[in-house]
């Protein structure tokens, strides 16, 4: 963990809202992305849950303990629980057409070709159909580029099981993409 981040956390634990604001700035994009992908591209819901995650983190900042892992591991853990709660209360099926307009947020569209955009939407839709643990590992490993140790910490699992989940998750995602392409 960076010394600067540790210092910010200590200040936030002491009630320094400015310090927590800096932590918010550092992690809001990746937490939003994690939630957005787990929800399969539901923008409004992803924003609500992201807000709840940081609100909960700020309220419970004193409970956070340094264990040698990034602060993001703790935030991912809160985010996972919030998404689980969301799905408990809402059963939803979002069509690929529903997420088409909002999918990329404020990303510069010139950076991506139309083919890549379609592929990205397809992958996102297929991620949503995966088991929650598969989603977590794929997003944290390949989108956020966390180490297996950090993923294990965020998911409350061993590094060995993270590797097994990662292997199965890619296999399952591949099947989902092939299935989706065959029907469109």
């Amino acid at each position, binding site marked *: 963990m960076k010394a600067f981040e540790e210092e910010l956390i200590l200040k936030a634990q002491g009630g320094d809202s400015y310090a927590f604001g800096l932590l918010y700035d550092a992690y809001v994009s990746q937490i939003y992305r994690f939630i957005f992908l787990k929800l399969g591209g539901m923008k409004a819901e992803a924003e609500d849950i992201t807000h709840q995650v940081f609100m909960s983190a700020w309220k419970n900042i004193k409970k956070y303990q340094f264990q040698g892992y990034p602060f993001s591991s703790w935030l991912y853990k809160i985010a996972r629980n919030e998404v689980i709660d969301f799905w408990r209360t809402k059963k939803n099926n979002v069509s690929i057409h529903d997420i088409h307009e909002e999918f990329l*947020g404020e*990303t510069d569209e010139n950076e991506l070709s139309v083919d890549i955009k379609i592929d990205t939407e397809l992958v996102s839709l297929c991620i949503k159909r995966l088991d929650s643990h598969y989603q977590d590992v794929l997003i944290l490993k390949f989108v956020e580029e966390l180490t297996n140790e950090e993923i294990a910490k965020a998911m409350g699992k061993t590094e060995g099981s993270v590797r097994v989940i990662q292997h199965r998750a890619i296999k399952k995602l591949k099947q989902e993409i092939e299935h989706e392409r065959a029907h469109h």
Partner: protein
Amino acid sequence: MNERIIKQLKQLKSIAPDNAFVSRSREIVINTTPAKRSRLALIFAWSGAAAMIMIIISISYIMSAPTMALSSSLNETKINEEIDSLSAGIEVQQITYEQKVSQTVTSALQEVGETKVNHLNESLLEKEVAGINKGSETEISEADALFDRAAK
């Protein structure tokens, strides 16, 4: 194929929240200071503690009432008074019973003395026995006379 999927996954990193959402959410979160919540929580905690104390006092008061009655019932002087009054009551009941028995026996003896029980008088019984025997002998002699007449 796997490499292509991983490449596509990496491209998802371009997803980002709206700036408007970020600034609005950030402001709300930051303005919700833990100190304010702690003060509110402290008020609730003190209110809860006060309520608990009131409940404990009420319960202890209720519990102490039967204890006082119990201790007064164990007072030695009161117990002695109770025992004295109890034994006096028993004696009065016994005297009343004995008086009733005495009256009953006296009245029974008086009845016997006034010969209202004639069937137990000895001389009267002897007279009755004599009368019975006398009647039997007369009847036998009459029967003999009848047999004689029939034989002739």
